[in-house]
């Protein structure tokens, strides 16, 4: 029997003007926002995560500067970390290895053009550790191996003539000038999805130090912990060690240890803020849509007053009149939801495709059928709830007065 009302509702909707559809705008914008957000969600998280360099789960990153540091890692730090810190950290029981790293801004020349970029240091005989923690791989040529002084490997964007600013691909075998000194490119890295790493030049520490003269100072120490479960203990041990070495008290640390979790937390809190904002806007939009449905249904009850009278005359119970209006408004909500789901999913898919081509990632949009089903049911419910009062008004009409129109 309920199906009959559904069919009647659909027939009624088919004969409605564009005015009714416009009231759905709110519902459909709201649903679009929610659904696109959800289907983008995982992609967004991966994209932002890649920018933060969240990769290996057992790696810690230590930076000097504490909470008040701004700018690029290690820049403008009064009391930098040192090579000695790294050596001492590596001696800790929870630590598998600790790699000091320097990042420098450099001038690169190629094809008679100059571009400024970043160079990252690799330590001799610690190459594998670095490749492992950063998940690096060469797609062309090969990685740097012990003794490859005077040679570099470069990030994927820097190699790409369309993106690097040199108007020419840099392939293994080519020579580039870094700080006016010649370096032979021997490998190109796979795309990582991070602006920094995809545009970077990797060279041996001795080479980079020779160019930049940073001496014993270290920008970052990357630490690999022996076991995932030892993470907290390692953070504790390293903090204690560094406090002693740098002579600072608990709570006044002028260095920062980031764990993958803490980075993910940062990423998630940023995303969470964005999501909360979108959800608030979506909620307001849906509320406006629901009020629109109340309005349309109220008008519709007035317009269909005569019909209500006819239906009552030919035997419709109050509940049967109620059901018709109830289903119509539910269907209105559902239509809004349907358009929103389709559009939202489309935006999600296009968005993820965009992220993929931008970052070279291979993410797929999170199309959750439970979520879609829930959204559709939800929009029906919103519509139906919005229609309750108008439908009750319809049901309460006196047949004689209603017949008069």
């Amino acid at each position, binding site marked *: 029997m309920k199906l009959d009302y559904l069919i009647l509702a659909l027939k009624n909707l088919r004969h409605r003007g564009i005015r009714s559809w416009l009231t759905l705008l709110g519902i459909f914008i709201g649903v679009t926002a929610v659904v696109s957000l959800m289907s983008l969600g995982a992609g967004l998280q991966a994209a932002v995560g890649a920018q933060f360099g969240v990769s290996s789960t057992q790696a810690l990153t230590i930076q000097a500067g504490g909470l008040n540091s701004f700018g690029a890692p290690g820049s403008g730090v009064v009391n930098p970390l040192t090579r000695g810190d790294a050596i001492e950290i590596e001696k800790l029981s929870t630590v598998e290895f600790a790699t000091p790293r320097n990042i420098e801004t450099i001038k690169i020349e190629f094809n008679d053009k100059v571009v400024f970029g970043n160079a990252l240091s690799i330590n001799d005989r610690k190459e594998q550790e670095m490749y492992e923690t950063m998940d690096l791989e060469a797609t062309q040529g090969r990685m740097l191996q012990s003794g490859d002084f005077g040679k570099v490997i470069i990030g994927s964007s820097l190699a790409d003539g369309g993106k690097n600013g040199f108007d020419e691909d840099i392939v293994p075998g080519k020579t580039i000038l870094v700080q006016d000194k010649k370096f032979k490119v021997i490998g190109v890295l796979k795309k990582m999805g991070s602006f920094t790493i995809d545009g970077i030049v990797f060279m041996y520490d001795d080479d980079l130090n020779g160019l930049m003269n940073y001496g014993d100072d270290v920008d970052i120490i990357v630490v690999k912990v022996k076991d995932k479960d030892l993470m907290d203990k390692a953070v504790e041990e390293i903090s204690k060690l560094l406090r002693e070495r740098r002579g600072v008290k608990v709570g006044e640390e002028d260095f920062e240890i980031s764990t993958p979790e803490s980075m993910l937390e940062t990423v998630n809190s940023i995303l969470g803020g964005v999501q909360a904002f979108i959800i608030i806007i979506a909620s307001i939009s849906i509320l406006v849509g629901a009020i629109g449905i109340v309005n349309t249904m109220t008008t519709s009850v007035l317009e269909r007053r005569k019909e209500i009278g006819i239906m009552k005359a030919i035997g419709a119970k109050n509940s049967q009149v109620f059901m018709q209006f109830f289903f119509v408004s539910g269907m209105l909500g559902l239509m809004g939801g349907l358009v929103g789901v389709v559009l939202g999913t489309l935006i999600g898919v296009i968005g993820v495709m965009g992220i993929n081509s931008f970052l070279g990632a291979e993410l797929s949009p999170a199309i959750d059928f439970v979520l879609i089903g829930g959204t559709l049911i939800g929009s029906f419910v919103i519509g139906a709830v919005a229609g309750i009062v108008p439908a009750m008004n319809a049901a309460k009409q006196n*047949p004689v007065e209603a017949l008069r129109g």
Partner: protein
Amino acid sequence: MVEMEEAKKEVIRLRDVSKYYPMGDSVVKALNHLEFKVFAGEFVAIMGPSGSGKSTAMNLVGSLDMPTHGTIYLDDGDISELSESDLAQIRGRKIGFIFQSFNLIPNLTVKENVMLPMMFQGASIEDRTRRAEELLKLVELGDRMNHYPGEISGGQMQRVAIARSLANDPEVILADEPTGNLDTKTGAIVMEFLEKLNRQGKTVIMVTHDPDLAEKHADVIYWLKDGELEKVTKRVGKRFVDVTKKKKKEAKSNGEK
């Protein structure tokens, strides 16, 4: 013959029914002390000029409205004792309405319009479809079933309304000025269908302002004037005789009170 007279079933009865409407500070007495009785198989007309209370009478007879005073019996049951929804259900089963302005639902097809009363009674879609098609063939609209009311003529619409009124096979057809919006020729066709239904045993109650129409088709005529029952006439052979008798007296004495 006598036995048959006795076996005649009372379908609708109004006992001393009045309907008053409040109008500002005063009260409009739309209908005063109406006595009305319809037996199964009769063709009854409620006759009166506009303002005579015939529309009010038709709403009460059709149990669409409740009287201010008096009692209305539908199949021996007092309708004031029923809930609004129960009354709607009984109305849908026992009375088929035909309106002056056809009153079809514009966004449903002809067939769906005829199916609607059956839907309210909970009939299955198969039964509804089958019966609607039968009825539309009966009113010679078998070829218009999937048209919308806006696509057919007034006469055809009224025939659809007749088919719809028959949907739940009611005992009574209540027609309110069924030819009022039609020209003479199409009006005559509609009246022919009503006559035919009456011959097949349906009780027909017709509300009209046209005495010729009433006298041409009805067996009993209730003449209303200014909210009062003026007289009741009954067909005897080709003539109508006044059978008001004591009712008139009652009305008079009530009026003098």
